[in-house]
């Protein structure tokens, strides 16, 4: 199916690219959000990723899955944005934010179950939240995760283990 749309775009039918936007926009946004932890930045990164994918479609190696290739672009753009943000003066790192949120959270625990869950997810390190997003929510295999993130298989498993441990720990502390 995607092959058809790729061919259409490459032969000049620009509107055909909207198929990829419709299919992947929310997934790309969530992946980006798991890294940059900010909706506005995540939206900008998603837009940049789609532009890059459109411009790079000619070079796309069709033996690979479009999904993996595109998610790789999203992850790279997200990490790039995160690096830029960290260099900016006044940007509070995720680790510092997490400490501040944890302290605040222990003083005033939300009664809303979903709020607690959202809080738990937002407290994860960006690699851990990305691994959780890709493995449990997007249901992508470990091999494909290594292709998307550039991590080794061992590293991916370590990050997933850590993520699961972090979720359990934060959940316990929250309750």
């Amino acid at each position, binding site marked *: 199916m995607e092959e058809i749309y790729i061919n259409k775009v490459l032969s000049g039918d*620009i*509107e055909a*690219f*909207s198929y990829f*936007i*419709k299919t992947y*926009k*929310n997934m790309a*946004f*969530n992946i980006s*959000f798991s890294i940059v932890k900010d*909706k506005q930045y*995540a*939206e900008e990164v*998603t*837009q940049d990723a*789609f*532009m890059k994918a*459109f411009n790079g479609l000619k070079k796309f190696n069709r033996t690979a899955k479009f999904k993996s290739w595109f998610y790789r672009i999203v992850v790279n753009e997200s990490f790039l944005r995160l690096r830029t943000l960290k260099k900016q003066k006044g940007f509070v790192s995720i680790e510092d934010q997490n400490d501040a949120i944890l302290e605040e959270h222990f003083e005033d625990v939300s009664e809303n*179950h*979903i709020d607690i*869950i*959202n809080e*738990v*997810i937002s407290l994860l390190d960006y690699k851990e939240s990305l691994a*959780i*997003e890709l*493995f*449990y*929510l997007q249901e992508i*295999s*470990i*091999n494909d995760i290594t292709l998307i993130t550039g991590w080794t*298989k061992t590293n991916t*498993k370590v990050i*997933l*283990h850590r*993520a*699961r441990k972090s*979720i*359990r720990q934060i*959940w316990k502390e929250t309750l």
Partner: protein
Amino acid sequence: MKKDTSEFKDDFVESIVKKANRNVLNEDFENKLMATIQNTHTYKKEALSRLKKSMFYFFVGILLIGIYSLVSFIDKSIVSSSIGILSILTLFFSTIIAIVFMDNYKRLFKSMSF
């Protein structure tokens, strides 16, 4: 699940993360993005077409200069025709460069303002 993922099968973690609010983009994200892509694509096409035209006129100009140089060389003395050819070549190249630069800057400024 496949063999390498069975060690990560975790109902508790899965139930937690699947209950979290999923972020969704604005409705108009797609339209805005397609408009940007269309504009970029149109600009590139137009720029390419203009570049090709410029190159065509450039080569026609070179050809005309070549023909004129040849005629001058045959007709007049070598020294006077060399000076004449050099002056014409300098004038020609300066004009082409000036037009190309002015035109490109004008287009760039116009296209960047959308």
